[in-house]
């Protein structure tokens, strides 16, 4: 049971952590690449 609980907690944490980092990547991307193209238009 302890093993299952570990997987359960790590799974939740891992998925949300992954998405949070992806969120930051997208924000950074919109700041850099989103504006760069606009200024070139």
């Amino acid at each position, binding site marked *: *049971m302890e*093993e*299952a*609980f*570990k*997987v*359960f907690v*790590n*799974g*939740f944490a*891992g*998925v*949300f*952590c*992954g*998405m*949070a*980092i*992806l*969120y930051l*990547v*997208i*924000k950074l*991307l*919109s700041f850099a*690449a*989103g504006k*760069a*193209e*606009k200024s070139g238009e």
Partner: protein
Amino acid sequence: MPFLEAMGILYLTPNMITMWLIGLLLIYLAVKKQYEPLLLLPIGFGIIIANLPEAGLMKPDTGLIWLFYHFGIEWEVIPPLIFLGLGAMTDFGPMLAQPRLIFLGAGAQVGVYVTFFVAYAFMGFSLKEAASIGIIGGADGPTTIFLASKLAPHLLGAVAVAGYSYMAMVPFIQPPIMRLLTTDAERRIRMKKSRKVTQREKIIFPITATIVIVLLVPASAPLISMFMLGNLFRESGVVGRLSDTAQNALMNIVTIFLGVSIGATMDGDHFLQKQVIYIFLLGLVAFMASTASGVLLAKFMNLFTKNKINPLIGAAGVSAVPMSARVVQKEGSRVDKKNYLLMFAMGPNIAGVIGTVIAAGIFLTMLQ
């Protein structure tokens, strides 16, 4: 007479005939009801031919379908190739335009872990089996097959059929849960118009996302790297032929091998067990829990955000692209015909695919 002794009919068992009926049922659902026909049709036929006595199609090393299964699925070739095609079909624009919505794709993975825990703690499945069942809640067929083939190959047929069956039933499973968890006023929420996403962002995103996700969860590399490569084909705009092949010809070819191979893993002696009924029940629980958790997370996020999210779009966090996004649109338009939620729902929908791959990668890392 040797000819008579070699006749398959002498070796026919009741289990085989039962499996033919199951195969025929899937073919009927595919043809008549058009439930995921691209998969259920070859799966149904695969079930029938795998249960023909003395045919030897699944005989290790020599059987034709066994070779498809071994080199296609056991060698991890087919699910990543499907992801290549899916990537080429995917537009990340709605997700990039509203990045906060990707958390709904994570929220919908709650069903995966809840079902994993229930299957292990209360239904007597092993950890690896429970993970293969829980991932059904992600509503992502290739990921389910990828994970089950590695952790619990003996359950592959059952989890694949359960997963694809429930995906076909998204328009029936999700709406009652969405209505139960939201008020009319919430369903009427109109979301702020999305910004325009530049081509440059769309090209850079698959590259950076691959690096980031694989650095975080290396076990997800086969699926995520092919998914993002397919998307890069699409967004680069310079390899139209590759994008077209990935989306169409290649996707169709591997779908044939995938369907027949999955169906052929379901031989009567192994499939007709009490466990399979539990898998179907747990798969349904996973789907319902994922839908509910996506909606509830959207409501939770509304407590802290100025620009409110229509909680219906949380239900699109289960992958099932684009069916669940369409369900969101339909449910939203029931209370407000001019509320266009489809493009907003595509964000969590695509994020759900990524979330499910990450969840599968974590299962693999911890259990393999």
